[in-house]
């Protein structure tokens, strides 16, 4: 990791992510129109450079204002849910992987059960059961259902790192359990965790969109999924009101795509064997397998990871 040579792909995806973040968090400050304000009639076509730049939606509200506020909601939900899922997944995985034995069995047993239950069903049930349908509870609901695959993957990584000598040194020098986890184990997993977090964010954004599309979106805020829900309900495709469904679709695509691209480009940065160009030439003849390579496993690239549980590679910890 000494030479952090960022690729073009990294910079492209990074600027795309940055652009969506700017749209989501700075956009509402620039576009003064409230997403709830009535600025026109039913599906007025785009005109001018004001709030009507992208026309109006089925309530006569500015699509542009809804888009920037909706992007913000999606990002907030994504970051919140991604953080919650990553923290839970990391905590369970690292403890199970390092401790091993009965703790491992119990934690992984619970994780396997959670993996076997379709996430979207739990999300729907939870969001109906919860009284409040604000952004924060929604993010939390998505977060607490998205962690299992990450717990499995982190545990596999942690099991392999556990056998390294420096951990023996740490144990011999009297380092305590949590200190070993935080200072001797976690740094070796960090590249993986960062990439998995990016995937969690992207998955959570798509999960929120799916939920909103079913009419279970946040009730006090506009989100990209809610925009699509109303666009479908009001037959915007039939009436030719493309400005009602294309902007949120494109924005969702860009959000999910740029995060996945970012993840895969970070994969290249962290894993030298994935580098192209000079790196490829250098790779011939094949470098012998070293223990370090074990950690260079990229997280499974699955969009909407809560909807489709990513297949988990066979636990590598078993053979170590």
């Amino acid at each position, binding site marked *: 990791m000494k030479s952090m040579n960022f690729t073009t792909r990294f910079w492209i995806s990074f600027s795309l992510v940055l652009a969506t973040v700017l749209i989501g968090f700075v956009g509402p400050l620039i576009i003064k129109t409230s997403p709830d304000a009535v600025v026109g009639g039913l599906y007025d076509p785009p005109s001018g450079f004001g709030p009507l730049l992208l026309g109006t939606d089925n309530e006569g509200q500015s699509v542009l204002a809804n888009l920037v506020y909706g992007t913000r909601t999606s990002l907030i939900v994504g970051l919140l849910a991604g953080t919650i899922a990553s923290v839970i997944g990391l905590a369970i995985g690292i403890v199970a992987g390092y401790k091993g034995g009965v703790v491992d069995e119990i934690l992984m047993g619970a994780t396997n059960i959670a993996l076997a239950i379709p996430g979207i069903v739990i999300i729907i049930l939870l969001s109906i059961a919860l009284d409040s349908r604000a952004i924060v509870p929604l993010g939390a609901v998505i977060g607490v259902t998205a962690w299992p695959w990450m717990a499995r993957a982190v545990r596999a990584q942690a099991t392999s790192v556990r056998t390294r000598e420096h951990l023996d040194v740490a144990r011999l020098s009297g380092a305590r359990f949590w200190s070993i986890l935080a200072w001797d184990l976690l740094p070796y997993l960090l590249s993986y965790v960062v990439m998995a977090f990016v995937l969690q964010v992207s998955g959570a954004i798509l999960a929120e969109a799916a939920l909103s599309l079913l009419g279970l979106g946040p*009730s006090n805020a506009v989100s990209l999924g809610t925009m699509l829900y109303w666009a479908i*309900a009001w037959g915007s495709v*039939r009436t030719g009101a493309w400005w009602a469904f294309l902007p949120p679709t494109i924005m969702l695509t860009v959000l999910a*795509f740029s995060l996945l691209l970012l993840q895969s480009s970070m994969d290249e940065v962290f894993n030298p064997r994935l580098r*192209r160009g000079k790196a490829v030439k250098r790779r011939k003849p094949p470098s012998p397998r070293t223990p370090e390579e074990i950690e260079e496993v990229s997280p499974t*690239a699955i969009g909407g990871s809560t909807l489709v549980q990513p297949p988990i590679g066979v636990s590598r910890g078993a053979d170590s």
Partner: protein
Amino acid sequence: MNDPMTDTPDTTPSDGSHWGTTWASSRRRFLALAGLAAGGAIVGVGAAGCGTAQTGSSSGSEGGKGRPGASGDTLFVAGFQWGPPTNFNPVGPSPQWPTAGGQSQLIYESLLRFNMLDGSLAPGLGKELQETDTTMTVPLQDGTKWSDGTDLTADDVVYTFQIAKEASLSYSNVWEYVDSIEATDPRTVQFTLKKSPYNPGTVRNAIANTLIIPKAIWSKIPVDKLTAETNLQPIGSGPFLMDKADQTQVNLKRHDDYWGKAVYGTPAMTTINHPIFKSNNDGDLKLESGEIDASQQFTAQIWKMWEDKQKPVGTWLKEKPYYLPGNLPLLIFNINKKGLDNVKVRRAIAHAINYPNIATTAMSDYSEPANASVILPSGYESKFYDQAAVDAEGWTYDKEKAVAILEGELNAKKGSDGIYVLPDGTKLGGWTLITPTGWTDWNTACEIVAKSAKEVGIDIKTEFPQAPTMQNKMQNGNFDLCMYSYSGVSAASPWSRFRDMLDDRGVAEVGKTAFYNYNRFKHPDVPKLLDDAGAAKTDEERKTAYQALDKIYREQIPVVPLMYRPLEFFEFNQSNWSGFPTAEDPYAPPMWSGAGIGWLFKIKKVSA
């Protein structure tokens, strides 16, 4: 975006080299392809929109020839049936198409048929209504028969009404106003009215709406089991027979020995088919493309079908508002809820709601902005409507006025969250507004109400449960605010609407099922005024009573009208059938129920 390569981490060194090269190149290719795919998907969505339109327009331009084969002799309708039919029981709690009261009389028929254009009663199974002060007599048409070939007599009519006295059916309330219903001879039915309460309008309405069922078949069923009967092979008197009904469609075939051939003629279509759709969208697209001939769905911006896409689609009116108002969706307050029990709070909310926006967006310009009256300002109810009183005592969309009421009259103070709090500490918020999910025009209206209220500082959330859940909450009085409608235009309106809204007689207490007056409104003057209006003999007397009731309504505001809505949506595509009634050719009303059956006998197949 599932890259199979990333799922397969290289496991052996030799494999690693092999995978390494292909991985690098295929990753790049994969990403390029993914980008293309994403772009393609976006274009595809756009193209799909145009694609549908193009299919439609090609069939539309060939519309002059009509559909080929058997489908050319079929009338396709939509907008009544939204799930697999479970029963065809006209006396059950939820009859399915076409056996419910508010639907076309294809299988079961009523004695007379209401016409919303002039409030008159057209002939049905009966010839006419002969009225005296205390009796109503209906002579049956000649030769009325059931579809199994037996005669339909006055006995069947008496039986149909008699069971409503013994069991609780949708038309049981007629017995509050009649002493007896008898067959004076095998072809004449006589209704003897009670002197007190005297209410000929409600009896007239029952005569116009009650579907007559065959005694020979139904009398075999115990009275307490009547409503549970599924009646999947209905025997009726109408011009069509049940052919088949399943998850995807209800199909009716023409009854060629229909008794009414001499009176009404023979319908031109041999089959009527109602495909069962999941949502408005599917039906709307098929109406546009000519695969649905006539529809009762809410179709947003329907004028685009003929103005932009040149489809042979039409509605009653060529210009806005396209439909005739016949109903009044209402915002119903729970007047027992703290905060909402204050009439000034209700008045502030009434001023806060953006009615023009509801009319143009939620109702797609099919409605004028709603007025502060529960009498319809057009159609046959308009003779009771008083614009001057509405202007003087009513409300309009006026945010400043709402704030003035809250701050000036109620001394409410805004809390840190921007929501007003009354001096006694009651927060004007935390209320939920419910209406059934999927009713898109109503859902949008609720969103606008919630946002309008938020703008002045009153906190209302929306929630859209499944229809049965919502209706159950509403009937039990277990809600903060709900959106629903009371009776539409009928032979008994606007009396029935005032009764539904203001009369506390016969309304179950909170926690039990009420069939009207969901917020349990009470007022000492209402019962007498209602009885007076019901018993009134001239329109002048009726108008006086209705105006007094409307005034009480405007003072107490138990509900707020949000928009006007047609009694039934009526839109058609003339690519296969032509001659639907319109305002220019008003030979039948723009209805499906009652006298609306008239157009079914008149539309003609478009020939090559």
